[in-house]
């Protein structure tokens, strides 16, 4: 067996496990935790397009989640337009907003960029909280919007509402696979190389004729569009959105944490980060928050600090190294057997 073959087998096993999981696990709690894990992996992968490759630290991606959630919900509640269409409308809107906010801010140096995206989220949240109506659209201020369930126990694809958790699981899993494929494609495209070059040595990249600013803005637009789709998904999953649930710094921060713990700029990083961090926050919230208030955040903070101290570039690098070593070991073992057989054939 060659190393490539073993790696392909591992990938196939992962995909098989991911798609087959709901056939075995039926507990809504575990399915919900898995859905949240995939959702955060999806959002972080989208974040990674600009935050990882371009080497900047955007802390305002919850704005795009908010735009996606609010656009599709408003279109559904007021105009009965399917959230599937609203999802795309929200994505396009987010892309435009991403362009408008990215154009001036992406020229700034790291800290200024991080802070201005932060201020942007807070500003948008304050505005949404204070507006009952935005033109003809009902925002409902801090109380948020409630999506009435279609009919209990029924699946309605057009309304993006399903009785069980499984459809949501498969939708977000498909979205994640798609965005991972896109990231893989981008990382091997001219845009990807330009982004990485511009993120590491902007002056050198500029000197070689790369338009760093333009590349970063396009990455931002793409990232905004994709992040926004998750907003619609979130709204349809919880059927209730309000400014503090989708337009918060906490959400933006969490995306950055997951990416940095996993390893920014790598394709698997966000998934690995989500695999490590999401269960911690979900389980500690379930089991610890009653007896020890705030304990889950302490745990979260400790994990962040410990990982950053031991592995500042994230956990993907050491994990892939371990994985490659194991693959090599297996390949060597299996090949040796073959040699032995050849010799005595």
């Amino acid at each position, binding site marked *: 067996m060659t190393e490539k073959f073993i790696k392909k087998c591992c990938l196939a096993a992962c995909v098989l496990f991911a798609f087959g999981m709901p056939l075995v696990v039926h507990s809504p709690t575990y399915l919900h935790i898995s859905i949240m894990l995939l959702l955060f992996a999806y959002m972080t992968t989208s974040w990674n397009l600009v935050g990882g490759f371009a080497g900047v630290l955007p802390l305002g991606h919850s704005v795009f989640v908010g735009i996606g959630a609010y656009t599709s919900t408003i279109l559904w509640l007021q105009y009965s337009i399917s959230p599937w269409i609203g999802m795309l409308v929200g994505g396009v809107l987010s892309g435009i907003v991403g362009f408008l906010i990215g154009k001036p801010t992406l020229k700034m140096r790291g800290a200024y960029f991080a802070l*201005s995206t932060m201020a*942007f989220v807070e500003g948008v949240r304050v505005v949404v909280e204070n507006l009952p109506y935005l033109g003809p659209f009902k925002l409902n201020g801090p109380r948020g919007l409630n999506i009435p369930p279609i009919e209990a126990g029924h699946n309605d694809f057009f309304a993006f509402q399903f009785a069980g958790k499984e459809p949501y699981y498969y939708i977000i899993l498909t979205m994640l696979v798609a965005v991972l494929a896109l990231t893989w494609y981008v990382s091997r495209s001219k845009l990807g190389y330009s982004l990485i070059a511009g993120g590491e040595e902007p002056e050198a990249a500029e000197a070689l004729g790369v338009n760093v600013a333009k590349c970063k803005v396009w990455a931002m637009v793409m990232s905004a569009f994709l992040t926004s789709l998750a907003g619609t998904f979130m709204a349809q999953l919880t059927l209730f959105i309000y400014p503090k649930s989708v337009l918060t710094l906490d959400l933006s921060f969490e995306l950055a944490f997951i990416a940095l713990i996993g390893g920014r700029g790598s394709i698997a990083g966000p998934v690995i980060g989500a695999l490590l961090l999401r269960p911690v926050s979900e389980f500690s919230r379930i089991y610890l928050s009653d007896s020890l208030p705030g304990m889950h955040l302490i745990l979260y903070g400790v994990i962040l600090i410990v990982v950053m101290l031991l592995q500042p570039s994230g956990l993907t690098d050491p994990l892939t190294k371990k994985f490659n070593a194991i693959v090599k070991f297996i390949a060597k073992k299996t090949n040796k057997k073959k040699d032995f057989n050849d010799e005595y054939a």
Partner: protein
Amino acid sequence: MDFSYLIQDIISGILMGSIYGLIALGLTLVFGVLKVINFAHGSFLMVGMYAAYWAVSITGLHPYVALVIVVPVMFFFGYYLQNFLIKPIFVAEKDVREPTTVIIVTTGIWYILDNITLLFFGPDYRALTPNPLKGKMMEFGDIFISIPKFYGFLIAIGTALLLYLFLQKTRTGRAIRATSLDRDAASLMGINQWKIFNVAFGIGTAVAGISGVVLTTFYNVYPTVGVPFDVKSFVIVVLGGLGSIPGAIIGGVIIGLIESIGPTFMTSTWTEAIVYVLFLLVLFVKPSGLFGQKYDW
């Protein structure tokens, strides 16, 4: 409109704004030297407030005498925090121009500090007792000035001046400035870069402690008290120019004025939105802030 209302608003805006400036002062100093946004700054303020609260509650001292206890405690707290948690990241990422990982570490410190406080002291709002300054006012005709805020204003100006003199006149201060300009060149001149980082971080934390003492005299203490001030100080330091001491104070006063004059013309929640809009406008027009240098790293 009655003119004295406007004067009243302006005065309370300047007083509160200078205290915002004092809070932002520590943040701007740390940024100036380490080139790192300290997301835990609001938590340091909260720790300072709890330290002041307990120092006064246990000993019954006058709140401002608590400074004698709070300032050194906070200085060493910051000094060792930088030494053990932040320095290793700098060492590991020596060739990275902007170690954004440090932001994550300071955010981790923020989560831990806020939630440990929640765990030990609960979510209750606590008011300082005994508090001889509570609700005291000076009266000038129609205009009222809150005495704790007025003293806070004096302490803010005094701290800024002292810090300025320290940075200009003393040997350590000059070393701090040299490190903030070019840490490699400063190291070559025999300055221990890591020690300077520790000292600068310690001073930043101590200043957060001073603002904590000032705030406890008229503000409640609770575990997440730092968060709104945290976000406000980010706005202030960017507005005034990251790393600039006068910028922090003046940025603080601008925010204070908007917050106190704004509600006369609109609902007070909208003034918050104006603060962010102004912040973004300043960033777009002059990204280095009002007093920031164009190329500070």
